[in-house]
């Protein structure tokens, strides 16, 4: 069923493919974040700190906890990457992700976060982020982003990559390549003393130089014992983000770059963010730890020299 919302005018060609499989349970012996059992999926620990701009400086034990969880999150993403090919549905990828989390004693962070129904986000083509895995088979030529966050031993680790499905057009390849470069250039600038609001200047400059735009509605965020917390890291230029990087800060950078305009809207499911003009969007994300001299990419790939998966297909 591809028309759950009669009257809704889609911005592009993508449609939801319902019904979704029921919410997958997580074994009781795996540690759960506070929102997992809240009826509306609200996180009281996050709400408590809502609006504060104080950025936590992690102690060595916490940093070790983050190293471990980010490595596990990377393993799960690599498993998802192996499945990406035409004909596979995003729900099948989500199922594999769910099992991979459980096998590693992790809770899949997106599950029930503000009632999100699945264990990861899968965003295809004009979907900017927060796509919900469903029955749609991937098509040759699609670009797919899989966003993984896992919760282990009290910490969250978050990363995402955009993959090619089969043979992808040159324009889309350029979009994905540029988006990756935006992320890596921003990461290159991370070190103590740099203002968080500077990252948006770097990202937008590179995106614009290649004729692309930067999504403004969603931003990077602090992450450790909370899924999303201070600092707020907008990806567009001239933002008012509060804070200066210090050793011990942990946060994500996750630029979403678009072929057309940056304006987004949300499907009636309350989650799926799409470009208003229906043109495609790509994203990449890492969780970073600020160190004395620069930063450590906690979610880096450990094989293939750390190359993103799409580079194998260029």
């Amino acid at each position, binding site marked *: 069923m591809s028309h759950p*919302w*009669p*009257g*809704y*005018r889609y*911005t592009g060609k993508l449609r939801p493919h319902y019904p979704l499989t029921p919410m997958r349970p997580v074994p009781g012996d795996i540690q759960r974040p506070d929102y997992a059992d809240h009826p*509306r*999926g*609200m996180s009281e620990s*996050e*709400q408590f700190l*809502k*609006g504060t*701009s104080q950025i936590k400086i992690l102690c060595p034990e916490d940093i070790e906890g983050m190293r471990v969880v980010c490595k596990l999150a990377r393993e799960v993403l690599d498993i998802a990457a192996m499945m990406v090919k035409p004909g596979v549905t995003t729900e099948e990828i989500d199922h594999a992700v769910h099992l991979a989390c459980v096998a590693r004693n992790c809770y899949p962070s997106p599950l029930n*976060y*503000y*009632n*999100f129904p699945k264990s990861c986000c899968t965003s295809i083509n004009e979907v900017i982020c*927060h796509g919900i895995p469903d029955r749609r088979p991937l098509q040759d030529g699609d670009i797919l982003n899989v966003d993984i966050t896992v919760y282990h031993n009290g910490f969250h680790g978050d990363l995402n990559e955009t993959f090619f499905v089969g043979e992808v057009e040159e324009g889309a390849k350029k979009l994905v390549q540029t988006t990756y470069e935006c992320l890596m250039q921003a990461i290159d600038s991370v070190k103590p003393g740099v*203002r968080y609001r500077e990252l948006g200047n770097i990202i937008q400059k590179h995106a614009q130089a290649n004729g692309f735009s930067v999504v*403004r*509605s*969603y*931003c*990077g*965020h602090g992450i450790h014992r909370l*899924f*999303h917390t201070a600092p*707020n890291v*907008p990806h*567009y*230029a*001239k*933002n*008012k983000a*509060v*804070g*200066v990087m210090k050793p011990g800060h942990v946060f994500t950078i*996750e630029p979403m770059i678009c072929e057309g*305009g940056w*304006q987004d*809207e*949300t499907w*009636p499911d*309350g*989650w799926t963010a799409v470009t*208003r*003009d229906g043109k495609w969007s790509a994203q990449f994300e890492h969780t970073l730890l600020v160190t004395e001299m620069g930063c450590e990419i906690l979610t880096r790939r450990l094989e293939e020299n750390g190359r993103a998966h799409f580079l194998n297909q260029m």
Partner: protein
Amino acid sequence: MDLQRHSKNTPKMFNICFYIMEDEDDCPELVPISAQPGPPAQQIPVTIITGYLGAGKTTLLNFILTEQHNKRIAVILNEFGEGSALEKSLAVSQAGELYEEWLELRNGCLCCSVKDNGLKAIENLMEKKGKFDYILLETTGLADPGAVASMFWVDAELGSDVYLDGIVTVIDAKYGLQQLNEDKANGLVNEAARQIALADLTIINKTDLVNKEELNQVRDTVRSINGLVKIVETQRARVDLSEVLDLHSFDSMDGAKLAEKLELAKPMRPHLDKSILTVTFEVAGELSEDALNAFIQDLLWEKKFCNKDGEPMTVIRLKGVVSFVGKAHQVMVQGVHELYEFNETPQLWEENLHVNRLVFIGRNLDKDVLQDHFVSTVVLKAETP
């Protein structure tokens, strides 16, 4: 036509006939045909109205609604509470009619989304139902209007349909002084004083209940807290609407007016120890933009500056007009708590002396410490008047 004070749990709050908009529960959303938004042609001003319970906020809101009957005005009571509601009601007044709308506060991922839920809900509503001419947001007595203001003080780059026009504080002439003098334990800020500190306009209401001397005391206390705020005295919140609406307190439109206002800001002797007060200074010369950024960040974010007693300065509101080396236009500085920005105004310096004026409103402020640091680190090219 009247708004009634209501409890948060009661959805229906008006005692007049109202026209309920269609039930949105099962109805799918219609996306307008013209889905291509350019830069907003006309942005809608948001005015935040704050003050203690009983000061006269509701009276003021009702007055604005009745006086501006040819405009479409949205009124939101009790700001957005603690984020657990999925819907929030909003009253719209148009052509003498008052009716209710619903804001859908989609929880979704309010975490990594840049725009506040409440702001998005308002924008969505306007997209579906048409734009308002004004939006008035009333906060509860204990809320920090700075936090509410920052919801609407969005980066220009976000292309929002709304802009923050100003913060209006209503204070009771009879009980206001008592509220301002209330000593808070543990160094907590006095909310009444904070509401004045953040105000662009203060309405001293119920002046008919006090004598001249009492009124002078209230006015002096307000002035000592906030050297910049416009003060209007009223009975029954009857005020000239041109004083309340279109304040443009956060944008560079009235760069010239701002410079004038700053010249007139009179710092007074603080009314109480540990109270909020206003500090201003002016220095002639041209500044380094980088150095001013560092100075403000040290002040607002790192809280590095201390007064002579070693207590860290806390700035609640910051306003100024400065001159950067290489920039012909006057630049406006605005700050609320930790958020701040620079905005180029249409005003040119031309042949005038480059007088940089900064006004700080907050606690434990020490003018000498601030000015010395400013002169030694931020001023690149000093000028002598």
